[in-house]
């Protein structure tokens, strides 16, 4: 239930354009990457987004707000139920399926991405200070897309 609530809050931060709160779901040294299933199966390490710190996520949002030029768009995340694949006293490893619709300013709505998050959750050492009160943070989130194709561009995070 904690993971579900965490994911719901995570998705809402993106879908409601509260992008500045999105990095707060991650630890300082978190890994966040967007890739697809073929790269993952071949162990190819690159991502279309590759961040190994929360600050890199903050920078990405700053770039979206201040620098990058893209048509106004929104996402709607529909997240499935997390499957816990491993758990110990340090961390919980879980896989959660996602579907993301992209809604353009023109009204055009498409299924933009489907896939699953490969996550490592850890205890939030400073609950309350990191923007969520759920007691956990993402140490790692790899968004593994089912399709190898990205339509036009990926601006907002998954």
């Amino acid at each position, binding site marked *: 239930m904690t993971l579900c609530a965490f994911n719901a809050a995570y998705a809402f931060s993106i879908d409601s354009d509260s992008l500045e709160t999105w990095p707060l779901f991650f630890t300082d040294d978190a890994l966040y990457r*967007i*890739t*697809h299933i*073929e*790269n993952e199966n071949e162990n*190819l*390490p*690159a*991502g*279309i*987004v*590759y*961040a*190994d*710190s929360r*600050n*890199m996520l*903050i*920078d*990405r949002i*700053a*770039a979206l707000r*201040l*620098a*990058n*030029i*893209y*048509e106004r768009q929104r996402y709607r995340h529909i997240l499935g139920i997390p499957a816990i694949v491993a758990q110990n006293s340090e961390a919980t490893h879980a896989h959660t399926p996602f579907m993301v619709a992209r809604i353009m300013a023109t009204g055009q709505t498409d299924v933009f991405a489907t896939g699953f998050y490969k996550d490592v959750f850890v205890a939030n050492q400073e609950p309350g200070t990191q923007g969520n009160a759920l007691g956990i943070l993402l140490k790692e989130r790899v968004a593994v897309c089912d399709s*190898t*194709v*990205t*339509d*036009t*561009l*990926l*601006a907002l995070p998954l």
Partner: protein
Amino acid sequence: MQNTQSHWKSESLTRIPYSLYSDDAIAEKEKVEIFHGNTWNFLCLDADLKDAGDYRTTFVGETPVVVVKDQDLQIYAFENRCAHRGALIALEKAGKEANFQCVYHAWSYNRQGDLTGVAFAKGVKGQGGMPASFCKEEHGPRKLRVTVYCGLVFGTFSQDSPDIESYLGPEICTRIQRVLHKPIEVIGRFTQALPNNWKLYVENVKDSYHASLLHMFFTTFKLNRLSQKGGVIVDSTGGHHVSYSIVENDAADNSYKDQAIRADNDQYLLKDRSLLAGFKEYDDGITLQILSVFPGFVLQQIQNCLAVRQVLPKGVASTELNWTYIGYADDSAEQRKVRLKQSNLIGPAGFISMEDGAVGGFVQRGIQGAQAHEAVVEMGGDHTGSSEGRATETSVRGFWKAYRDIMKI
């Protein structure tokens, strides 16, 4: 065939008829004159085909092809079309096969694309079968001539394409060798679906004029290097180009830090500057080199971020852009990490490339209903020569020079 001559009002390369981006007859003519004509088309990397039997499927223009390494360790390419009914022979993007068999009626092919087997050729229980006159050697998918240059595998359907070094010309060869001077490894593959004609993306690659105007990432975060110089090289055909920039200051990374200290508004500075913490790996000081080969290949070095791009038309108004991110086989773990981090600059979500995914679509949408009108490509004059500055559209005009020559329009 429609009279394509009418698209152009003059011989000038400074005006580009918008109809070229949406006309079906033009797209059909491109298939014949460009993609099946005297051009070398990027197929894959040598590094993609390590062992005998390794293959990849790709396209030349919109024609599906199979690229495969045979027992002799030579690379062969043939049309991915069964000689029987025309079905695809290979369905996967990549794999390893001793030979290929069409799923429809089990006609089979060796790795060089020769038809080697026809199922039930002698009939079943004396009934049916192919006529005795049927000669397998006379049937088969069309074969491409293949050449490997610096680890890049190119193919051509034409017997008349010049050898690859003549096709590229000495300046382009030198600039390819500069980057691909030792073995590489693939570190990721991504495909971007672009909502525009393929030529709009190729023009965008060649357009050194837009870079600092559309892509605001470096400017916004005060990452501009003040002491940059650079230029554009256009080969004699016009079809290939290199644009590059050089940081003259050896202490480039320190100058970043100095700028950061002087900047008065923290909000506009990157919090994690390791994104751009690169290492020097080329003695010439060139920190950015974008190189294109007609019709649709790009080799890119942006700092330590290396990639090849393949531009494939998918109908008149959409394009597939295949990115292959690479590193050198002898990269240290730290160097590889730098490449992974800098890959945030490129690709479908790249800080300095995401706009390119959309801007072609803006043109494609903008020119609806303007078929009789023309784009203006006059920055830097009307020539197609090499240029010291980058506020020029010389290499865009070069593309159209090569395009008009080969299309005969």
